[in-house]
């Protein structure tokens, strides 16, 4: 084989000749970095990266996209079940450990930095590669920043309504609310993380003790025929009856990408006593924004010291110092079909702190950027009576743009230089 090899179009990156003998300390660094900087390691890491991406895709046949992202991509180690590589009609037990996305990405970063410290001198010939690699570092860091800091939420506004909070659809919380006066409610929330395991939740800020009896990652709403009775049946404001039923997580590959409707069964007790004030099954199905306001259940209540408290499971809510008022939602279809062609929301943005009061039109690909958040037209209530905006805060949102320009430019420079050299050789 050896006699077949010709010099590759680019000189092997490790073969940059050194004219003089480096001093001792430099040699020690060299020895330390050499294995970390090797192209062999790069190739191995690429193989691992491809494998984890493939596994993270196949896992989405059974699991939701966000749990896969957390387990496979935003992690250091993942146990991959063998089952994901086989048709689901076969049952294959067992799993094996594998480096997660953040570990592989981190190693690639180290490999890349080591290679640059060791091999690449600043020169015009290498400028393309430098640019590409710098751009890739920006890209990897941006994914890390997104993973750590980005928040995605939704804001549902009915026509004529004013809303000052968003729903973080990847998190849930249990809210206990009671009215103070006609203008304000007093509310205490229990974060979703505490609801996932059965047990007693006690906190001095809570007016009561809350015992979690059962947690459902996802639930479905089943229509109950007239006359049937039984547990967990609830009646909506317009008299339809539904049963809340446990259901497995929605899958990442599902074409219609539904959100999970978590549900939790709780018992409310008077603080520090065994006196039960009520037992409730609360589900996201009862949170009006979850159903685009299409299904409305009356609130569930309990009494404490003569006051009425409402219990609600909802998306984690973040109150904003500003508010949006939906003036008009517009929606048009392609002629003769119900395929949406365009939708837009005319909203009034009011911010007392910053003295903002203006009208904005939000539509497809034309988001509103305000106060570090971006508001996208995302959906609408089925009867066109309101709009759903996707609200995103991602401090790293600009980084991919920067990275893209750097890498594309780098590739043009690098491959372009090769091409020119190659064409010149052929002309000669």
């Amino acid at each position: 084989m050896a006699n077949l090899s010709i010099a590759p179009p680019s000189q092997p990156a490790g073969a940059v000749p050194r004219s003089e003998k480096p001093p001792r300390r430099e040699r020690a660094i060299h020895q330390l970095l050499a294995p970390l900087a090797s192209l062999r390691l790069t190739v191995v890491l690429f193989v691992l990266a491809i494998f984890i991406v493939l596994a993270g895709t196949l896992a989405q046949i059974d699991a939701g996209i966000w749990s896969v992202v957390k387990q496979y991509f935003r992690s250091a180690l993942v146990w991959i079940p063998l089952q994901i590589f086989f048709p689901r009609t076969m049952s294959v037990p067992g799993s094996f450990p594998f480096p997660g996305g953040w570990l592989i990405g981190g190693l690639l970063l180290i490999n890349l930095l080591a290679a640059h410290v060791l091999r690449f001198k600043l020169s015009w010939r290498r400028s393309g590669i430098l640019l590409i690699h710098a751009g890739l570092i920006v890209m990897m860091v941006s994914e890390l920043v997104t993973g750590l800091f980005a928040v995605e939420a939704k804001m549902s506004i009915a026509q004529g309504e004013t809303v000052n909070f968003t729903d973080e659809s990847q998190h849930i919380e249990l809210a206990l609310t009671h009215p103070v006066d006609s203008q304000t409610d007093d509310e205490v929330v229990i974060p979703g993380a505490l609801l996932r395991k059965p047990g007693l939740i006690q906190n001095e800020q809570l007016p009561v003790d809350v015992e979690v009896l059962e947690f459902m990652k996802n639930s479905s709403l089943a229509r109950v025929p007239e006359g049937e009775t039984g547990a967990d049946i609830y009646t909506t404001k317009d008299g339809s009856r539904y049963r809340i039923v446990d259901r497995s997580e929605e899958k990442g590959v599902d074409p219609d990408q539904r959100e999970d409707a978590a549900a939790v069964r709780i018992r409310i007790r008077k603080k520090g006593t065994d006196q039960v004030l009520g037992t409730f099954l609360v589900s996201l199905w009862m949170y009006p924004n979850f159903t685009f306001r299409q299904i409305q259940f009356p609130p569930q209540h309990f009494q404490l010291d003569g006051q009425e408290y409402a219990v609600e499971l909802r998306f984690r809510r973040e109150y904003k110092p500003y508010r949006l008022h939906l003036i008009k939602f517009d929606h048009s279809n392609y002629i003769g079909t119900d395929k949406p062609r365009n939708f837009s929301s005319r909203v009034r943005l009011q911010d007392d702190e910053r003295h903002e009061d203006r009208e904005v039109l939000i539509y497809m690909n034309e988001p509103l950027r305000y106060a570090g958040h971006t508001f996208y037209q995302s959906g609408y209530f089925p009867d066109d009576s309101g709009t759903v905006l996707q609200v995103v805060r991602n401090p790293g949102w600009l980084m991919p743009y920067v990275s893209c320009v750097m890498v594309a430019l780098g590739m043009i420079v690098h491959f372009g230089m090769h091409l020119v050299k190659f064409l010149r050789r052929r002309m000669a």
Partner: protein
Amino acid sequence: MNGFSRHLPWMVTATAALGLALVVFFPPEPPGPMKLEEFGKIPVVDGGRIKPLDTLARNTLLVISNRQYFVDNKDESQPAIRWLLDVMTSLMQQKGSPAEQHKVFRIEHSQLLELLGLKPRPGSWRYAIGEFSDKLDELDKEANRAQKLDPKQRDLFDTKVLELAQHLQLYIELAKLRTPLAVPPESQGQEWQPLIMAMFDMKQNGTQNPAAAALGKILIAYANGEAGEFNRLVASYRQLINDRMPQVAPKADFEAFFNRVEPFYLCSLLYVLVALLACVSWVAYAEPLNRSAFWLTVLTVIVHTWALGARMYIQGRPPVTNLYSSAVFIGWGCVLMGLVLEAIYKNSVGNLLAGVTGALTLVIAHNLAAGGDTLEMMQAVLDTNFWLATHVTCVTIGYAATFLAGFLGMVLILRGLLTPTLDREAYKTLGSMIYGIVCFATFFSFTGTVLGGIWADQSWGRFWGWDPKENGALIIVLWNALILHARWGGMVQQRGMAVLAVFGNIVTAWSWFGVNMLGVGLHSYGFMSGAVFWLLAFVGSQLALIGLGLIPMRHWRSVVNPSFASA
């Protein structure tokens, strides 16, 4: 001999050009005195866009019959528009409509045939509605049952029952004149409406609607077989439309023309010819055949480009909007790259690539077209925007280049292993061709993927969401980067790169088709439904090639040849 080599290339190209001109400018005489093709140019609204009746007829037949024409009882092929006219007039016919005798419903599933009391008709598998009209109640019952099941619980029989029920529904909608929206608005602010509604309106409320009345008369003339009257009415109706909607009518005419020419079909034939010429050129008459293949490719790619442009004009969209158009576009990209390679290397490898990939992708596209209208309208979120348009274009070019590198790898392996023709020089040349194409593929797949992220960020604020389609694209980028780094690190040489590039075919096929099958394919049909089978067969063939590529080179026929060592 000398004259032959000099003249062959232009003779081949000119003959092909002449053949194309004949198809384009001399349409086949329609059987019978009625000018059906003129009727086919009438614009209507269906599936969210204005299209000529000819398109509606072809697409509907494609859906229910899997081809764009039908065979009548005298075993003669008939145009789709005749079938449509027969269906649209079926309720006006006094004695049994011919539409009920046209064998167009494709039914293959044995249980379903049994349910309908039909005998298997191998080869054609097409049946007329008149042959099973007495069993429609049974079909309806089964369809209702299947409809109630969760889509994931349906077995193949249920799916086929539902499919046939939908096809019958399409037929009935057309027969009752509820589809398409055939009557244009009378005035500003009005909508297109179905013929039956407009007619009903005229009868009940006495409103005037010249267009609806004219359309009704055309159908009556057809039903009564009055050819002269039919032709006259069609001509005057088209004049009416032309006056009322001067932008719409020419576009519909053009689309009907586009349908008739079937440019992609013509291209696929020519690409096969190119591939043949390139193959033969390795055996004999290398120089003239090679140049013939090159110029024939140039001619074909002009037609291909025109056809892509025509689709963009009709739809008003960037070239890639769905799986079908991605296949057409990937083919186009591959052919162009093949031409560039040929212009640089002149060793007929580029011609072979252009021919094979061009023909293959167009055949794949043809098979993807069975879903109906390939110019369908898109969901609002996929609405045109600069980032989306550049994203799909770049990514598809990236896919094309990755495939091309894989096919080059295939050529290197097969030619070196099985033939003595791969000398040292050709071996090196192929190696550097693969290298160049992989660089190209890396650039476009990376840029395209990132542009997709930017579009997603613009549209819903998430640059990267790790969904199956994005992951597929990422894997292609990573694979190309892997090949390049393995090469730069000296871990692989020409042969190793060829083997890796062939594996790139698997990676690309996965991203292009595989991820689309994850949602439904694995659940409802099991592993062996049509598309999954072809994907697996393709993967198997590529793995076999990789196996061949790993056979030690001392066993390769070309390497054994003394010319390889001495060169």
